[in-house]
């Protein structure tokens, strides 16, 4: 049974895993790039080792260095988190070869589900419905894909075979624009996964993205922890997740849960995984893909089921049976997660970098924050722009929405721009409140409101004027002081007093 876990990741998920280890009493080894020396996961870990330069390919994607650090530090298990090497079967394989427990599924399950085309075929054979699309396996050339596209019909999606997280995904509305989009999808897939291979899938209109969390142990027990509703997306990136989904009834939930368990069994799955489904307006559901790792949005499931998914992952990896049977899993209340990103919602959601000079976290009842940053930390352009995950729990979905509004209003982040205003407007939107949305809602039917409340505009004007006035007065004082030719020493003293 392993005693020391190397966490092959960074940011909030590294901190999340570290916390689970600490609460179980397992030592933690953090790794960091040169840009992350002061990151929270380094500060909180028992041990921490430098991987290399900031670029992921020189640090967090370096299997050789990770395995070397595991050896050096005596870590006997590795948790990959999500992203980076989490879904690389060669990494899982390499860990196993060296006698290091990989906290995740077997390499063969990763391989079976990692190649999205193979995965579609595998589950289809197990009798699970899949979205119509490419049915071949292997590297398809653009000419082939253009032919298949005509058969599937438009609109359709280009997806990276090695994909995940919306990277290398493109929507195509007609044949003409397809060659150019194939090129850019392949380029993005190549840069994200080192694999430019893509496949096609029919775009199901008005569909919702709903996924089922599964847990499976080495004894062959497989259970599901119900669903997460992830339809609030922008550019195929999830922004808000909920559990339960207001779109499912008990019957559909049970059916999808059963299918999810079957899909996991089809690849002999062990550990935590997620089956993503598209659910159309008529409540038909189709297998999309399986994520063979911990998901960003796992906390909403934790908040309504009480199950600590990361602790359960560790338990499973230690060879123990699941702590829960299917009938132990109940949905208690409702949870919502907002991903707080460093990006500017008033300017096309362009990522924002810089130092977080100040922040005030919303706290109090029913609020959870998972983050890897703190005031003084710098958001760099090297990694994804997520600052934190804000998760709330309420006795009902309505109460969770009201609590999320309250939490968003309290949240202050100074130094970078954030998408908090976007989330605020979303929580105020009637369609969101009514649960009436699909995966296109944000891009097609939701806009950052343009008209301002005149009373608020006046307050904003007063605030700007007072701040400008204060600044003008301060610079006037500075000039006066300088003219008095105060000695440097006095100056420093005064400056220190001013900034105390």
């Amino acid at each position, binding site marked *: 049974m392993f005693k020391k876990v190397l966490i092959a990741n960074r940011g909030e998920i590294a901190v999340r895993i570290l916390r689970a280890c600490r609460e179980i009493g397992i030592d933690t080894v953090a790794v960091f790039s040169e840009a992350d020396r002061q990151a929270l996961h380094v500060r909180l870990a028992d041990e921490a080792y430098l991987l290399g330069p900031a670029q992921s390919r020189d640090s967090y994607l370096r299997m050789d260095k990770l395995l070397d650090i595991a050896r050096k530090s005596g870590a006997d298990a590795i948790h990959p988190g999500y992203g980076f090497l989490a879904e690389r079967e060669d990494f899982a394989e390499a860990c196993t070869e060296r006698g290091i427990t990989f906290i995740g599924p077997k390499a063969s399950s990763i391989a079976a589900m990692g190649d999205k085309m193979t995965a579609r075929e595998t589950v289809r054979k197990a009798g699970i419905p899949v979205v119509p699309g490419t049915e071949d396996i292997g590297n398809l050339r653009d000419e082939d894909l253009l032919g298949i596209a005509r058969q599937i019909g438009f609109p359709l999606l280009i997806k990276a075979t090695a994909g995940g997280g919306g990277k290398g995904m493109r929507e195509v509305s007609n044949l003409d624009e397809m060659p150019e989009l194939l090129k850019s999808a392949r380029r993005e897939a190549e*840069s994200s996964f080192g694999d430019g291979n893509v496949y096609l899938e029919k775009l199901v209109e008005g569909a919702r993205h709903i996924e089922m969390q599964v847990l499976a142990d080495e004894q062959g027990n497989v259970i599901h922890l119900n669903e997460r509703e992830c339809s609030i997306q922008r550019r195929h990136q999830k922004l808000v997740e909920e559990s339960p989904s207001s779109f499912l009834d008990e019957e559909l939930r049970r059916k999808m849960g059963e299918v999810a368990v079957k899909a996991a069994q089809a690849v002999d799955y062990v550990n935590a995984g997620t089956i993503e489904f598209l659910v159309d307006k008529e409540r038909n559901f189709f297998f999309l893909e399986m994520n063979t790792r911990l998901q960003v949005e796992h906390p909403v499931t934790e908040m309504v089921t009480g199950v600590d998914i990361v602790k359960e992952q560790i338990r499973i990896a230690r060879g123990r049976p699941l702590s829960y049977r299917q009938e132990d899993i109940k949905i208690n209340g409702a949870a919502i997660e907002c991903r707080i990103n460093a990006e500017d919602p008033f300017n*096309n959601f362009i990522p924002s970098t810089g130092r977080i000079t*100040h922040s005030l976290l919303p706290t109090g009842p029913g609020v959870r924050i998972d983050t890897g940053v703190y005031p003084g930390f710098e958001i760099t*352009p090297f990694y994804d722009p997520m600052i934190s995950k804000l998760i709330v729990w309420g006795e009902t979905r309505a109460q969770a929405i009201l609590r999320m509004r309250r939490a968003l209003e309290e949240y202050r982040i100074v130094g970078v721009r954030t998408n908090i205003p976007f989330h605020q407007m979303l929580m105020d939107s009637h369609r969101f409140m009514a649960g009436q949305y699909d995966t296109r809602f944000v891009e097609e039917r939701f806009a950052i409101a343009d008209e301002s409340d*005149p009373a*608020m505009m*006046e307050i*904003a004007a007063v605030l700007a*004027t007072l701040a400008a006035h204060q600044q003008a007065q301060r610079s006037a004082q500075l000039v006066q002081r300088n003219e008095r030719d105060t000695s440097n020493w006095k100056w420093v003293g005064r400056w220190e007093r001013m900034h105390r």
Partner: protein
Amino acid sequence: MKYVTTIEGKEFTVEILDEKHIRVNELVLEMDFMAVSGQPVYSLLIDGKSYEAYVYPEEKDWQVLLRGRQYQAQVEDERKKRLKTAGGLSAEGGEFHLKAPMPGLVVAIPVNEGQVIQKGQVLVILESMKMQNELKAPRDGTVHRIRVKPGESVEQRQPLLNIL
């Protein structure tokens, strides 16, 4: 001190009477204004109402993030503004400089020098934080000078191109 502050084309006359009083559009209001914990986060109590906002200068304007909305304010000394207007100077128009909002890699520049472009048209595709970000034109105009090439790495605030 009397200021004229403009937000979204609407002018507000704000006169600072003393430390605790201002006149806004002819109405005298009691207020208390202070920075919180040495940051550009300001707490404003005005006639009992409590507001908190993140207020900071950017280029020549002031940005105000208040209750989930971002306001861009031009604050001008009323006397100077009067003089300027009298002289017929215009604050509008002129050249627009597109700068990189973050460090990144220029993936594509789907416009050419001299091309007439419309507001919202994509000018540069910049890859950063593993995402491709489209930088769009803030107004109609003509591409004047392109200063970078696809494949080039750029620093934050580095000029990319100009629009006339």
